[in-house]
């Protein structure tokens, strides 16, 4: 409960219509897309500008009230679940594209802009913003920046981090800072832009971003390669990269995932094969054609039973859309869909796919795997039932083994979903104690009262836990 006097102060800042502490109003911001996490905030505030956020943060700092910034709540690490209560901060009023600068090739936006809306605006001008998380039709740029979201085009074009040039952010003490700018080169002090990207709302509240744009590629082609053997598909991925081709998209879907996706999308995906690769290349027409042909040959050499080129942009878009729906489509299978995000160097993708299969057999689980094979970022997904304690414990153990295996192969516990609460207990696996201490020092320095999205990234103890609540 926010105390009455404090509530009055908040209302004075944002207006009564932008402050909600009703039970229903709070309940609908008690979750994000992460299974099994739910916690009620005390109030939900929708500020209209950075100055209001600054005033709100000053109050929160002095009173020790937790504050959780939230875009559309599509994240998968419980990063926006208000696990310690407090205020959920919404950006629905701060959703404008401020400027698209065609001379400097930048877009300046407010955090509440929907990713796809911005992409469409930018592409209408012949420009390109590559990061395309699967939730881009729903997600906000602010959310993407805070989680450093990836997407289907990550392998060739990088992730959100690679396109953030400058930020405006409000710090825990209410100070408003600006980092970077429309500058290709800028070494004035620490790179705070990069520090804030992926900080999951724990270091500051981002209120504006300047994003890098590039020219829109001239042409694009899409194809599906079908395999009757998982390893052949995985090996094709490594071979393509080894042949010095970097495709725009190189996605992997196994049979159970294909079945679930086809069940939803009904676009005639092959469900009788063990795996498919969704491959795309963009660029100048002749380069695209040459690369596509070469990749088709590589897949065939590895044993692909068929390689099919999309006949139209419509068909290609249907394939991409279907792939983006993979996770949610898997939710058809069982009530609780536990998804992971282990990532390995791409040369290790075949080893990782094999390891996931062995681990799922060992624990008697069916794990469906899909993901951005081209950048080593897989999404092993386990359809389970949260009401079945025994099964959830096996899921827990299986994922722990998957994480350990990923680290062993030179990988990481999360490629693009973030740490949040869900993966906090495993962070040490990747960073070691010294790494965690260094990060904590940054956190404490910028947010001494621990009000900015508390409980995220750093585990309270080292109890390993992805899904089992005790």
């Amino acid at each position, binding site marked *: 409960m926010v105390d009455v006097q404090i509530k009055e102060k908040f209302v004075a800042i944002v207006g009564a219509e932008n402050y909600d502490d009703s*039970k*229903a109003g709070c309940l*609908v*911001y008690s979750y994000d897309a992460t299974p099994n996490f739910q916690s009620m905030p005390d109030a939900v505030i929708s500020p209209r500008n950075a100055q209001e956020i600054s005033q709100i943060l000053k109050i929160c700092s002095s009173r020790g009230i937790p504050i959780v910034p939230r875009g559309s709540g599509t994240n998968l690490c419980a990063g926006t679940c208000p696990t310690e209560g407090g205020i959920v901060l919404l950006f629905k009023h701060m959703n404008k594209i401020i400027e698209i600068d065609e001379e400097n090739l930048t877009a300046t936006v407010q955090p509440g802009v*929907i990713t796809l809306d911005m992409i469409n605006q930018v592409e209408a001008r012949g420009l390109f913003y590559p990061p395309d998380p699967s939730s881009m039709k729903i997600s906000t740029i602010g959310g993407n920046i805070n989680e450093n979201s990836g997407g289907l085009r990550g392998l060739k074009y990088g992730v959100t981090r690679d396109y953030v040039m400058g930020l405006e952010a409000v710090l825990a003490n209410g100070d408003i800072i600006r980092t970077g700018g429309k500058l290709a080169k800028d070494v004035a002090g620490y790179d705070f832009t990069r520090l804030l990207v992926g900080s999951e709302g724990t270091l500051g509240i981002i209120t504006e971003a300047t994003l890098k744009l590039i020219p829109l590629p001239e042409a694009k082609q899409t194809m599906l390669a079908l395999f009757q053997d998982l390893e052949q598909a995985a090996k094709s991925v490594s071979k393509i990269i080894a042949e010095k081709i970097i495709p725009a998209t190189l996605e992997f879907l196994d049979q159970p995932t294909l079945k679930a996706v086809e*069940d939803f999308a009904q676009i005639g995906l092959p469900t009788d094969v063990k795996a498919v690769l969704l491959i795309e290349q963009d660029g100048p027409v002749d380069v695209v054609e040459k690369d596509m042909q070469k990749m088709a040959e590589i897949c065939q050499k590895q044993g692909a039973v068929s390689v099919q080129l999309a006949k139209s942009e419509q068909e290609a878009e249907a394939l991409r859309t279907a792939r983006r*729906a993979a996770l*949610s*489509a898997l939710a058809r299978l069982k*009530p609780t869909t536990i998804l992971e995000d282990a990532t390995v160097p791409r040369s290790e993708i075949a080893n990782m796919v094999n390891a996931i299969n062995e681990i799922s057999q060992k624990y008697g689980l069916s794990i469906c795997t899909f993901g951005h094979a081209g950048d080593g970022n897989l999404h092993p997904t386990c359809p389970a039932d949260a009401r079945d304690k025994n099964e959830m414990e096996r899921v827990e153990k299986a994922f722990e083994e998957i994480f350990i295996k990923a680290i062993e192969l030179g990988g990481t516990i999360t490629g693009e979903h973030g740490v949040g609460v869900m993966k906090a207990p495993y962070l040490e696996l990747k960073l070691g104690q010294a790494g965690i201490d260094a990060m904590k020092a940054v956190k404490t320095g910028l947010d001494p009262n621990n009000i900015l999205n508390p409980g995220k990234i750093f585990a309270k103890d080292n109890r390993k836990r992805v899904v089992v609540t005790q």
Partner: protein
Amino acid sequence: MTTLKEQSVIQEEFEKRMDEDELLNCMRCGFCLPSCPTYVESGFKEAHSPRGRIALMKAVADGLIEPDEDVERSLDLCLGCRACEPVCPSGVKYGHLLEEARDIINQNKKHSLPVRAVRNLVFNGLFPHQNRMRAAAGLLGFYQRSGLQSAARKTGMLNWLPKNFSAMEKVLPQVPKLKEMKNRPSYFPAEKPVKKAAFFTGCLMDTMFLETNNATIKLLQLAGCEIHIPQNQACCGALHGHSGEKQTAKDLAKRNIEAFEKLSADYIITNAGGCGAFLIDYDHLLKDDREWHERAVKFSEKLKDISQILFELEFHKKVHLELPGQVVTYQDSCHLRNVMKTSIAPRTLLNSIRGIEFREMKDADRCCGSAGIYNIVESEMSMQILDHKMIQAKSANAAVIVTSNPGCLLQMKLGIEREGLQHKIKAIHIADILLEAACAK
């Protein structure tokens, strides 16, 4: 207002009756958000989104929160357009959850006396009885023909009514005479019958929109169907089902199943997307009824919309369709599109009319705000949605807006009236325009 005692009963019922698996099936990915008209129109309020509503239903069932006014408000503001269903990768059956939740709330809450009286009159006294529907429509016809209407309009008496009602009064179609409504035959032969079709005439369609029903019959004949119209059919029950009167809806469903199964027709045809979607869901409505479930499945399997059956029987290839040059656009009926999955057929049929230009309207798949009686009970939101719809209609620059459901048709007429575009744009049911195109030579 619900009392605390009512709330606790409602909560218990939620725990007992809400389908836990279906609630859990929502993995909260949010893919539904952009498709939800009330989420967008409310300025992105999660409580007015499908994900938010499911979370609220689950929270009530789990005992996390009470079913207070805000929860009820969230459920009331839902159009029930079900646009969230086709975009849901997990396949959550949102419409079923909503219906169950509304039924629980309505059955366990004491409405104020006037509300109870109106609900009872409409849900039990009027719609289940076709003869009374006819009589009511007859009254309206009397009002229109007797000079009362022009008197009412002249004296400004209608201005006393809420703004929407007076506009609505203007767009109601000319009601046919009682005799016409009562004396239609129950069998129409085709020249060369290829299929046996049973026609679900609908209560509103068979009174106020009798012309459209007659057109539907002619189209079916042209497509090679003989048509049977079971006389003991009843209202489909959609209005009841969507308003928390499930028991009456079930009774009506049984009456209809009984009326139609005897005919053993190849198809059961409807020309109202709203009715069709409810009829096709009879198997779900009666899923717990051993005696009736199987019969309901058989009924649902035969159900098709008029545009779908014409498309399948290749009506547009057999019959020459032509109209004078004009731009024609199509507004989807949400239930026809999202529940009956019929969206290509009407467009193909319209595209086959020579002379006209079919132009797709942006967001044609988005609800127009009619949604049964939503435009009366939630008129503010409904009109906001309609205004945005009209912006799209205007930029499509069409002279004709085609729809496939009486509610949508009236709402589009209302939109045209509100914009003062009566002389530029007309709204018409797809059966009417198709018959016009088939006859015009």
